[in-house]
């Protein structure tokens, strides 16, 4: 290393994010002058694993990609499989999917707000946010039998029905009032404001250039939300607002997440009221051959699953793009020039989820040289395209 700055490692052994990642901050005094991020400590090969499972089994596999937003991957995956041969999902199942998806948004955002408080050294917010997240997990347990990994999704519908509508409506009211209380407590706190305002600003043009998604993009003034842009499930049948803010700093990201919790509560309430009795499963027998794409607005942003089927019972190719993969590189634009005290918080502000993001690199064992880099893959893909063109011409 020929850099003169001090290297501050925030790595797998640092009690910052309790997830396997490694940040290198180069600091001069307290100012961060350069940053690198390294992931790949926990690559599990889910995409390959999924190819060895039947379409039905793969739903459970992708659910285990992430422990926090555990329903967003099955949501996108089942939509991708249904997309292959245009399977129609019963209306009641669509509503239940929407309810599960947005309940998850509430618990995920509350979890992040708690962690943000912890990163600020404000452990009271940490404990309170997690306390108020607990009723959401209880609702999940009541619906699905599990606090996490609900196992609710299947190709063509959902596995369990929601029966206790009145009880759920009351529970949602409680959750909403908690969220409103937390919103007021956090937004009005002058010291929190001093710590978060104008810190880690992601400008709109940077947000576009980095291709960020979800609350990170919406905090920078980009009004993107799959639920609005390409409505699916029951999202076109309920009224809700996409929260967009202009600042791009951590304060905006916090406020957006809390406001989205309130919107999610509204969505769930409408779904519960509009739901009509009916079947919850289309009883799919064949998936057929072809390709399908499924999107879902996960708590962290748009998640995309691509599934290719060859008519057998197994996916031939399964490709997953998690939102954190788009959001994590924005550190490079937000952290440089800030103080070390804020760096930890800025890296956490995109709500990174490393288990979703894990990628691997191929290395030649003898030389340690990384093979199959980005450029090489682009070159390989272009060569392949040329071959295909040649083949097509005959």
């Amino acid at each position, binding site marked *: 290393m020929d850099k003169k700055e001090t290297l501050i490692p925030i790595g797998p052994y640092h009690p910052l994010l309790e997830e396997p990642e490694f940040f290198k901050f180069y*600091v001069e005094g307290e100012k961060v002058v350069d940053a690198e991020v390294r992931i790949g400590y926990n690559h599990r090969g889910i995409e390959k694993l999924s190819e060895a499972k039947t379409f039905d089994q793969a739903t459970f596999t992708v659910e285990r990609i992430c422990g926090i937003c555990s329903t967003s991957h099955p949501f996108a995956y089942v939509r991708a499989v249904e997309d292959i041969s245009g399977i129609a999902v019963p209306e009641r199942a669509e509503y239940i999917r929407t309810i599960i998806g947005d309940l998850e948004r509430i618990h995920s955002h509350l979890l992040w707000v708690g962690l943000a408080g912890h990163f600020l*050294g404000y*452990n009271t917010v940490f404990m309170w946010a997690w306390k108020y997240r607990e009723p959401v997990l209880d609702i999940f347990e009541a619906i699905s039998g599990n606090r996490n990994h609900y196992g609710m999704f299947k190709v063509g519908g959902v596995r369990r029905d929601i029966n206790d509508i009145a009880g759920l409506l009351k529970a949602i009211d409680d959750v909403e009032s908690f969220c409103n209380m937390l919103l007021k407590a956090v937004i009005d706190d002058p010291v929190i404001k001093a*710590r978060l305002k104008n810190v880690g600003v992601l400008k709109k043009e940077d947000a576009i250039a980095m291709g960020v998604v979800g609350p990170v993009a919406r905090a920078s003034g980009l009004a993107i939300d799959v639920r609005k842009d390409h409505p699916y499930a029951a999202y076109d049948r309920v009224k809700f607002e996409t929260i967009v803010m202009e600042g791009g700093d951590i304060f905006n990201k916090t406020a957006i997440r809390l406001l989205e919790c309130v919107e999610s509560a509204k969505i769930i309430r409408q779904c519960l009221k509009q739901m009509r009795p009916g079947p919850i499963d289309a009883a799919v027998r064949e998936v057929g051959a072809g390709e399908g794409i499924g999107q879902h607005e996960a708590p962290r942003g748009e998640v995309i699953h691509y599934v290719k089927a060859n008519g057998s019972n197994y996916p031939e190719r399964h490709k997953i793009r998690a939102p954190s993969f788009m959001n994590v590189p924005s550190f490079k634009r937000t952290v440089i020039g800030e*103080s*070390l005290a804020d760096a930890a918080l800025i890296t956490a502000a995109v709500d990174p989820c490393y288990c979703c993001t894990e990628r691997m690199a191929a290395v030649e064992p003898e030389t340690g040289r990384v093979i199959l880099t980005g450029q090489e893959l682009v070159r390989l893909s272009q060569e392949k395209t040329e071959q295909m063109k040649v083949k097509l011409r005959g």
Partner: protein
Amino acid sequence: MMAMIFNFLIFPGFLFAAGAGLLATWLDRKVTARLQYRVGPPWFQPLADLAKLLGKEIIVPEGVSRSVFLGAPLFGLAGVTLVSAIIFSPAPFVGDLIVVIYLLMLPPLAVIFGGSASRNPLSAIGASREMKLVLAYELPFILALFTVVLKTHSIMIGEIVRYQNLSGLMIGSLSGLFAFAAALLAVQAKLGAVPFDLPEAEQELAAGPLLEYSGAPLAVFRLTRAMLYFVLPAFLAVIFMGGGLDPWFMLKYLIVLTLIILIKNTNPRLRIDHALRLFWGPVSGLAALAFILAWLGK
């Protein structure tokens, strides 16, 4: 001679301050836990933690100066022990405010020495933050204490206590109240409690200056911190609310400690530049205002 050794080692010095300090940290942990909907530890937990640390291996990083690295914690412990012996000393001639201000500098200096000697970038940054913080809070702290001196016309702690017994508590006057508020914030920083726990900032610097410490030296640092939890609030109580080791004094001490715990639990950590601005701006201003009010006899 025997009396002095007794004063220093047992009462009101080392043993007394250590016991009271460990109980104070327990109270801090328990109240914090209840505020956060947790159960909290049993009363002997700080003592158990200390005993456990004392039994652990002492690791000295490669290439550091052993004498500085291992001497720093003892240096701080000696400082806080002396302060405790002085504040409650039966012999009035040592009870001098300026000596106390000097001695209270020793624990932060120990942290700075230890952190700088650790040869770890996180420790070095923590030590530099501690240094900046000391520079920030010393001015308002001294200003606030000299408000008391101006009012009581004495730098002897015994005299200050007697003045308050005769003509009312310091905190009862406007200048005394302002000075108390400024001194309380400085004490919060001296204790390294949120919002001024920047040197150790768990989430940014792991443990900062204490990162490389283990075993007995770490236990000594922890004990020093615990004793400060008794000595500093007690010092404020003596100076601003009158002294004497009686039940009323315990109540005054608990009021100060509760204030510190509440501030700690209702604030996020400040950034070092915010902390400097806060101490040199509003807090120093408040202390200066108290000084002027005392000058005017308020």
